[in-house]
């Protein structure tokens, strides 16, 4: 594939597009598909066929996630400019569409009319306040069509990197962009890349971590389902930059649609010469393979993920050595998450400075968040770093449903914490969130109203961590189980002050001593809810009296041996 050939594909695709009068885009991401968007597409296509010649100039296209999942299935119609009427091109979004609407939408579209009753206004903050980089193509292109991606400028970043830039240039741009790992840790991406690039080895690997395990997070799923070629392009650029020729995408088996689209995208890219040997007539070779997870949250941890790709139990190992020097099959390995990889093509296309111009001083660019829980606009958003939580929840997310009161927002999943109402004006960036006792995490935001008990939320996450602990190191294996028992006691209102003290002690040990991030962060949901909602913990203790020493100390379980008595 030469730059000229790529350009030609884009031009051809654009021309084919221009032959059309109307386009009807139907969301085919998992959420809308579960509400029968596939049937909507079939019905629309059948209707157009019935129309004969009249229907030929209208195309129904399957596209990826449009973001506002709570209003799905979503359909967007592109009307062309009507010069006679002095109208420019126009997009109309329809919400809550079911197969019954298929015919009327097709009829109206072909006649150039809109159906006001079904319209989803797009001048609301949910749409206008977003800044879309990672999700720039989501909802516009057909994720199963490589030409569509190319027509939208796809793979031009890769081709220009390969033909115009040295690997060092690429790393320089990524460093300048200020991009930090979007999987949760926030490690500077450029630094990670240059570490791998500088390590000498006969073989290096690139791994894309698509094991999106945080409950309440679905950003990566949406990106994989909506724009899979973007990941392939980002990974290939990464491979060129660090000197790797082989790559793996480690994706959760729970995401069958994402897997299907990735498989298809990889085979298309191979066919188009965008993967394989001698890319762009250079000596650079690059192959990507898929590896499926099998339901283990801990595999999001780099060393556990490596073990899993190697076909082993997904248990982490002590770091250092870091995967950048000793990773997959013992070779230097670059591991980035989906969103990080998806930002790369944009950086090579527009330059690192362009990304650095967005966001705050230390947190550059945009971040995709998944809004879920008690919020009106459920779905996916991409916003510049530094935006406030209040803007996200009350403006973009349109506030809390049923007139309820906001209580807390949980970010960072089981490694994060809950942020209360008085912190809503805090900017969303890596440092501020950490200061508030939580983390950016991968981008899940679960909004809770006053009906949620914070002790119960802490219990929920502890149960998760206990179930997902690999069992290798003692503090995580035993600590999470012990903490869960105590939190269950609290939820049952049968705990004592002594239990609460013990809980705090266990949090400290588990955080400080665990082998990997899972254990080290498992206490965070407890610690943050303890910090902001201590009264709820006090209320959860037995009876009304909760002062220290007011409750008789409980004995250890009868019959339990004291191991050190009989020596």
């Amino acid at each position, binding site marked *: 594939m030469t730059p000229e050939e790529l350009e030609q594909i884009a031009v051809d695709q654009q021309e084919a597009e221009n032959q059309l009068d109307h386009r009807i885009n139907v969301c085919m991401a998992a959420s809308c598909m579960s509400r029968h968007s596939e049937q909507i597409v079939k019905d629309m296509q059948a209707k157009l066929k019935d129309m004969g010649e009249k229907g030929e100039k209208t195309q129904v296209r399957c596209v990826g996630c449009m973001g506002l999942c709570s209003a799905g299935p979503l359909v967007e119609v592109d009307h062309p400019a009507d010069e006679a009427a002095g109208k420019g091109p126009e997009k109309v979004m329809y919400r809550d569409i079911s197969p019954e609407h298929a015919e009327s939408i097709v009829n109206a579209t072909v006649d150039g009319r809109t159906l006001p009753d079904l319209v989803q206004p797009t001048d609301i903050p949910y749409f206008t306040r977003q800044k879309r980089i990672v999700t720039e193509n989501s909802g516009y292109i057909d994720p199963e069509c490589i030409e569509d991606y190319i027509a939208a400028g796809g793979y031009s970043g890769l081709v220009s990197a390969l033909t115009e830039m040295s690997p060092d240039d690429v790393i320089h741009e990524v460093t300048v962009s200020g991009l930090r790992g979007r999987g949760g840790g926030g490690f500077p991406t450029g630094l990670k890349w240059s570490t791998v690039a500088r390590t000498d080895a006969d073989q290096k690997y690139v791994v894309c971590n698509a094991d999106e395990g945080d409950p309440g997070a679905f950003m990566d799923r949406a990106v994989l389902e909506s724009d899979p070629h973007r990941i392939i392009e980002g990974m290939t650029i990464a491979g060129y930059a660090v000197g790797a020729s082989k790559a793996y995408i480690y994706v959760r088996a729970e995401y069958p649609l994402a897997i299907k689209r990735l498989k298809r995208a990889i085979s298309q890219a191979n066919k188009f010469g965008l993967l394989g040997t001698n890319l762009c007539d250079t000596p650079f070779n690059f192959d990507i393979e898929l590896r499926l997870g099998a339901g283990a949250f801990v595999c999001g941890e780099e060393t556990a993920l490596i073990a899993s790709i190697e076909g082993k139990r997904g248990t982490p190992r*002590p770091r250092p050595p870091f995967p950048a020097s000793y990773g997959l099959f013992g070779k230097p390995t670059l591991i980035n998450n989906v969103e990080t990889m998806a930002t790369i093509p944009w950086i090579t296309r527009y330059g690192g400075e362009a990304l650095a111009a967005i966001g705050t001083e230390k947190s550059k660019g945009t971040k995709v968040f998944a809004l879920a829980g008690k919020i009106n606009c459920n779905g996916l958003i991409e916003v510049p770093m530094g935006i406030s939580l209040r803007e996200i929840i009350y403006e973009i997310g349109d506030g809390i449903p049923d007139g309820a009161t906001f209580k807390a927002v949980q970010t960072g999943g089981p490694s994060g914490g809950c942020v209360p109402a008085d912190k809503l004006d805090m900017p969303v960036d890596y440092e501020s969130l950490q200061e508030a006792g939580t983390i950016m995490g991968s981008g899940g935001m679960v909004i809770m109203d006053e009906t949620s008990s914070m002790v119960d939320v802490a219990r929920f996450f502890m149960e998760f961590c206990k*179930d997902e602990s690999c*069992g*290798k190191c*003692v503090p995580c294996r*035993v600590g999470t189980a012990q903490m869960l028992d105590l939190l269950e006691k609290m939820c049952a209102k049968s705990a004592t002050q002594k239990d609460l003290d013990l809980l705090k*002690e266990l949090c400290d040990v588990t955080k*400080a001593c665990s*082998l990997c991030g899972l254990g080290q962060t498992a206490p965070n949901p407890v610690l943050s809810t303890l910090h902001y909602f201590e009264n709820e913990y006090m209320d959860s203790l037995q009876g009304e009296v909760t002062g220290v020493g007011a409750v008789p100390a409980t004995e250890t379980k009868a019959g339990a041996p004291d*191991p050190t008595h009989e020596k």
Partner: protein
Amino acid sequence: MARQKLPPTQTLTMKIDDVDVTAKPGQTIQDVARDHDIEIPGLCYIDGLTIWGACRLCLVEVEGMRKLLAACSTEVAEGMIVHTDTERLRRYRKMVIEMLFAERNHVCSVCVSNGHCDLQAMAVQLGVDHVHLPYMNPDVKVDSSHDRFRLDHNRCILCTRCVRVCGEIEGAATKGVGGRGINARIINDLNMPWGDSQTCTSCGKCVHICPTGALVEKGTAAAEMKKHRSFLPYLTVMRES
């Protein structure tokens, strides 16, 4: 054929517990400490087996590092200042020992390893005089199906010394870990009775390397199971030959 080790190209200097020590590049904190008779606690580490890094008893403080580091797996660096015995570390270690005691059913008085148990010794050394964590009293089994040996899950601390010695030294790989988290258990083959295993060579290394009364010889009464560890120094040699 034993490989001839190249002489070290350089010597590092560092501090462990306020003592100036020298070290070779590539050594771990544990190696260097031992060379200088500084004892760091630990239960999963065995010279000659792959480093597991899971008991967390050998965690040390390294100046300039935010996190605690495992002495068994962390390589030394020039100028490193290590503290192996701070108040904080002692507190954490005691708690980890307590966690192990609370996790399974360690009844020392009736245990055949009473008096010859690394866990017990570690508890004494660290001053664990009682367990203030609730006992979890799991319902775990005893496998007595093997002719000569017994596997008592009640006493297991999942250090995986047996798994590693079986796979890495004996080469049988009979022992493994099944399940995960708090439900993880040492298994034989496809989690079958040990006596039914077709891969076990009955070499007994797992029994003698086991730090507790989890793997023992049959026919021993309380406090009678003394483990024979004389082969341990040879593990490194066996791996290198």
